[in-house]
């Protein structure tokens, strides 16, 4: 059903990605697809590397560890954005086109008040990407919370 599954990763917050990473790996094994991890960095030194090249090394290491844990096919690309906080969505959409992804699996936070003003990156991607998008909430939902806000 899918050939290339793109998974945007925020290397600074990998614990909050666990469910989306696991899901992407499952889907890849079922479909014989490749998971493509995409990370975005600024060209200024940051927590995850002094240079974009260092960041890319980290992303490779992350990819290797995922393959080891889940045993699926995987690849990764690091992208540089001048203003990552703003350009994230547009860079991810371009990445999806360039790697020819047919599914994007993406972690996202639960709906909140601010989403009315600022749609989350996941929402923005789902609205603009022509392929399929699977938004994964990190926390399992509690029965009492099954009311849309």
């Amino acid at each position, binding site marked *: 059903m899918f050939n290339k599954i793109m998974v945007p990763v925020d290397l600074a917050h990998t614990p909050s990605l666990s469910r989306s990473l696991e899901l992407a790996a499952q889907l890849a094994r079922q479909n014989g697809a490749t998971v493509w991890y995409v990370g975005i960095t600024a060209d*200024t*030194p940051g927590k995850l590397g002094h*240079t974009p090249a260092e960041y890319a090394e980290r992303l490779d290491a992350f990819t290797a560890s995922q393959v080891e844990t889940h045993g699926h096919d995987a690849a990764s690309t690091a992208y540089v954005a*001048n203003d990552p906080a*703003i350009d994230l969505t547009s860079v991810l959409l371009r990445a999806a086109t360039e790697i020819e992804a047919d599914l994007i699996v993406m972690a996202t936070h639960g709906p909140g008040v601010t989403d009315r003003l600022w749609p989350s990156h996941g929402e923005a991607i789902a609205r603009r990407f022509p392929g399929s998008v699977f938004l994964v909430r990190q926390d399992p939902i509690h029965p009492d919370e099954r009311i849309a806000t």
Partner: protein
Amino acid sequence: MSDNPDPSLSADTGIPEPEGVSDLIETDYEIGQDNLEGSLGPIGFDIHNPVFAVSGLAIVAFVFYTLALPDQAGALFSAMFDFVTKGFDWFFLGAANIFVLFCLLLIVSPMGKIRLGGSEATPDYTYLGWFAMLFAAGMGIGLVFYGVAEPMSHFSSSLGGVTVGENGVRTDWAPLGGAEGDEAAAIRLGMAATIFHWGLHPWAIYAIVALALALFSYNKGLPLTVRSAFYPILGERVWGWPGHVIDILAVFATLFGLATSLGFGATQANAGLNELFGIPIGDTTEVILITVITAIALVSVLRGLDGGVKVLSEINMALALVLLVFVLLAGSTVAVLTGFFDYLWAYIEYLPALSNPIGREDVNFMQGWTSFYWAWWISWSPFVGMFIARVSRGRTVREFMICVLLIPSLVCVLWMSVFGGVAIQQVVQDGYTAAQDADLPLKLFKMLDELPLTGITSLVGIVLVIVFFVTSSDSGSLVIDTITAGGKVDAPVPQRVFWAIFEGAVAIVLLLSAGGLGSLQSMVISTGLPFTVVLLVMCVAIWKGLASERKA
């Protein structure tokens, strides 16, 4: 951005090629390690705690003080202004001379070959986009505000000649010895003095800060904050309180520098709107202006560096160019063009005397104009410098210095020659003195009155002030946000929104306070003084940093 056809922006189509040789500084400090990450209600934040909290609270306390005790604050501010501009005039002038010489030295030295971002780095922006951004951030509203006003003032005061008060101190505002009764000499001296304030010196100040930040961030791998430049001198201590103090100073200087410019912008836009549409001059209009313009700046910061700030800077440059060409063609073109070279020559001729820091007799000019300007440029330098650094990755030191120092200086000479030249010609040839007699913010519009299509050009003038205003406010918010986030450029977006609104609020409160623009200016000058010391030390750090880069 995803469909941007501009190949020069290809740096973000993927990881750049290996960055080549650079000499990373090994430190155990991890960027963001002192940051406080969390959320306030639904809004996430990621801030460097001492820097964010101290600068934020101190600015709020300052604003409350000016509002609660306006008279005392007003007196204190004017005392501070006098103390700093009069007591430290030699220091500002001397330091600025050192900066110019240091920049010129870097252009010709072999260190000019070193590339920011490593030997293989490629530039993120085209020359045009890069140039538009550094120019819009660097000069901004001041060019529009003083373009006619300053050459005119120096011309008039030079023509008036020297007057000496009872105590033997000169009471006139003429630069150097003035040029009493000699119109041609007064024009040359006036233009030379103006160009002096907008030429090499301000751009050298910006270039030093920008180079230091770019070098220590892109080549040495330290966070993009002002403290990083002090690593060669302070070592690991830059991550503690000495570093916090430097960053807090930078935030102060930036915020008050911006607020002053916003104040100038609001008064001039108001004056223009009054002239054109009869909109009343006063607090209400100015507050509305600042609010509207801050709102536009908000949209721009939310669109980011490429989608907002860069686009506005380019619009800005286009508008400024249109106005410049129009004034040039509508005014006495030939006289102004020949004037350009004449004024440039006059600048070079008078430069040694004008930049001399000691034993000057023209105290009013030196303290009231030069000293204030140097302090103003210095207080702007963390902001403009960081902004220039952020967009200059991939340039060599020589290319950087030529483009940041020489080209903008020449553009300023051209701008002043055209606006000041046409206005002075109006006085000298046509006997039209409305611009000469008008208040500072109005001089530009009075000059435009004499040229054709007044309605349109005045409107362009007002729009230009407003767009300059917006580009200063949005790039300023990005810079303060980066400093208060410990050098992270990807902090949550609400933070930059907070700073954009905060800047507007400070400008409004201070404009409404008893001292008005005066209290803003005193704050600029007062933060400029300690920052001059910071800049001098920076020169040493740059030298050390570049030297180690050559060995790598």
